[in-house]
């Protein structure tokens, strides 16, 4: 789908990208990662000809891009630039509508698309559609930038650190969202990131660059278990086992877990706590409310009183989360398991530390 052949870009004496060859297949997510200044942005911009290569050739769909009109080439690719670059004099919805306008879509279709995209990036359409970029936070602006790149539903996406400025929790949600959409839409994506965990989680293949050169282009598993050289080895760091966990979704490990209703009596609770020390507490709608500990049941009159009602957001993970996050929540709460909830906060089950161990062992083998 996208093929770079010995592409070089030099600015005077600086060689930003050197003899880089890279192939990204149709429907594949290629995460481009490397230290600052190694040429990631330059590589990305050569694909849509915002930067012309000094030498080498680039093919999109088998066609040499040097022979395609730049405007036409670019309209088939969504591009989220590193600096966001929203148009300050246009509202959020006008910003998103730019490419659909260029492609002369009908009004209703554009309006519908705007609403769809805003919800997709987790911003309430009613609240955000009419705002101006000057009224957005950095993270919100960045998400609008992503929505704008997706607007005309292009088959190819070039994204330069699209989630760089959003908070970890939102980023986690956007990544999960991205994976879900990608599974059904199968876009061809080149995404630049500085965050190795993000690369490992989202990539079909990771391209690691160093000083303008491609040092390894492989699946995340391969990069983690067989780093090509010392640079990659150091780059992925010593916690490779932990990183591998972030490739594995908890959804395959959810198991039934003991739970009691928040309105249950103390006796019922004590009975539930016979087999193990803690059980999850849910409300009448099956929504997770916290957990109770066997030792805390002695001198209380109701379950409600002894509940450790930490914010479910903090103790639970979503179905879409990774084993790595599950493990980190367990360590945070000092429990040997973590509850898994659906998008309405309803308890689905739990993942235990043993599951995590088994998963690690299986991959190691």
């Amino acid at each position, binding site marked *: 789908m996208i093929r770079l052949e010995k592409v070089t870009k030099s600015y005077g004496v600086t060689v930003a990208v050197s003899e880089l060859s890279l192939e990204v297949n149709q429907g594949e997510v290629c995460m481009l990662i490397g230290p600052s200044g190694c040429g990631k942005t330059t590589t990305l911009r050569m694909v*849509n000809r*915002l930067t012309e290569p000094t030498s080498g050739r680039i093919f999109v769909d088998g066609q040499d891009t040097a022979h395609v009109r*730049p*405007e*036409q*080439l*670019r*309209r088939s690719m969504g*591009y989220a*630039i590193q*600096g*966001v*670059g*929203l*148009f*300050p*004099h*246009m*509202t959020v919805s006008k910003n998103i509508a*730019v*490419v659909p306008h*260029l492609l002369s879509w009908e009004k209703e279709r554009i309006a519908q698309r705007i609403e769809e995209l805003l919800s997709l990036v987790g911003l309430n359409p009613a609240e955000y559609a009419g705002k*101006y*970029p*000057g*009224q957005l936070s950095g993270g919100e602006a960045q998400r609008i*930038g992503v929505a*704008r790149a997706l607007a005309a539903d292009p088959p190819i996406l*070039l994204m330069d650190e699209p989630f760089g400025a959003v908070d970890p929790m939102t980023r986690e949600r956007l990544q999960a969202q991205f994976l879900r959409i990608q599974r059904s839409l199968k876009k061809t994506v080149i995404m630049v990131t500085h965050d190795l965990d993000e690369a490992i989680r989202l990539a079909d293949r990771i391209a690691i660059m160093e000083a303008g050169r491609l040092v390894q282009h492989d699946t995340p598993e391969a990069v983690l278990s067989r780093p090509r050289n010392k640079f990659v080895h150091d780059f992925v760091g010593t916690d490779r086992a932990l990183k591998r966990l972030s490739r594995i979704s908890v959804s395959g490990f959810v198991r039934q877990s003991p739970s009691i209703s928040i309105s249950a009596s103390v006796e019922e609770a004590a009975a539930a706590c016979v087999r193990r020390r803690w059980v999850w507490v849910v409300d009448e709608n099956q929504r997770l409310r916290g957990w109770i500990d066997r030792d805390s049941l002695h001198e209380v009159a109701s379950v409600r009183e002894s509940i450790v009602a930490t914010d479910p957001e903090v103790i639970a993970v979503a179905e879409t989360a990774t084993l790595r996050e599950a493990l980190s929540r367990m360590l945070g709460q000092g429990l040997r398991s973590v509850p898994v909830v659906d998008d309405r906060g309803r308890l689905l089950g739990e993942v235990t530390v043993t599951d995590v161990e088994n998963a690690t062992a299986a991959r190691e083998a």
Partner: protein
Amino acid sequence: MAQRLLGRNNVALVGSVIGLSSLFFSWLTLRPNRLAAGTHISLWDSAGWAATAIIILWLACLVSSLSGWGKSGNRRAIYLGMTANIIVVVALVLVGLTATLLVGDQSPLLRVSLGAGFWITLAGAYIAIFAARERLRGRGAWRNAVSWTALAAFGIFLITGLLQNLSIWQEFSGRESRFLQELGQHLFLLGGSVATGVLLGIPLGIWAVRSKGAERPIFFIANITQTVPSLALFGFLIPPLSALSFAFPALRELGIRGVGTTPALIALTIYSLLPIVRNTYVGLRQVDPAAVDAGLGMGMSGFQIFRKIEAPLAAPLVLQGVRIASVQVVGLVAVAALIGAGGLGWFIFQGIGQAAPDLILLGAIPIIALALMVDAVMRAVVRLATPKGTGKESQ
């Protein structure tokens, strides 16, 4: 007390002191004829009630500016501004009535002209009015009242004839048609040169942004032209244009001569170029490069980028440049009278030649008024052209 003094309003204070000092100067001068020496009439010698009113009003301004804006800043600013307006109105009534009284049914050659005291009070009042205006930013109705009340009263007095016995009016009433003709010429020179400046300056500014090679020479030339004294520039144009019209009589038919409208238009156009070129350049340069980049990345053509992104974002600054050029040219047109191009400057130079200060004022006052009006209109245009989302209020 120390704190009260620290909180004082310096600009308004200066205005009030200037205003009070006007009491020591003559307010009117009575001459047997236009050119003869005259007798000075102080505030005390004219209508007593008005003199007392002006002194009390000025003292009120002084006290109010000594105590600063305070917590109820806007209310104080309104008091101060409106008091200054009333001072102007009273002063106008005073000089108008006194002049009528003095002229009576005496010789038509008798002249009553405005003296230093009147002008000083006017200056002091407008200093106070500007101080109050600054403070009232964003308070539309009161700000307008403070800015325009005295001017409106002046307009009414002009129409009703209250001021018709002042010598300026007499200078005017003999030359009404000439005045309208020169005013028209003034506006023509202003409009013609600024329009040409816009047509040339905006493309030059765009060119300077787009081409590294063009940037330096364009600004070199534009900057140089600003340093040539206006009179010299008018003079420089005489020889080449006379030579041209001498060589090609057909051009002469078109009005191209060494003196007159053509060289004036050329010189004024050259003067209006720098602010327009510079602001176009800065306006385009301050457009966020990331926005342009994003536009390109989305497949917009160079022209679409210009029309949809660069032009709307640069427009307020470009128009700001047109405003500066226009205000500057309103004043410079006055000099054009020296090379026979006419305009309100004609009265100024006639007045200088005849040592008739009232004739000078007949040219100078409308020029100042015109400059203020052009400034106000262009400011409104700039505001209208500022896209929502980029104004100060949303940042």
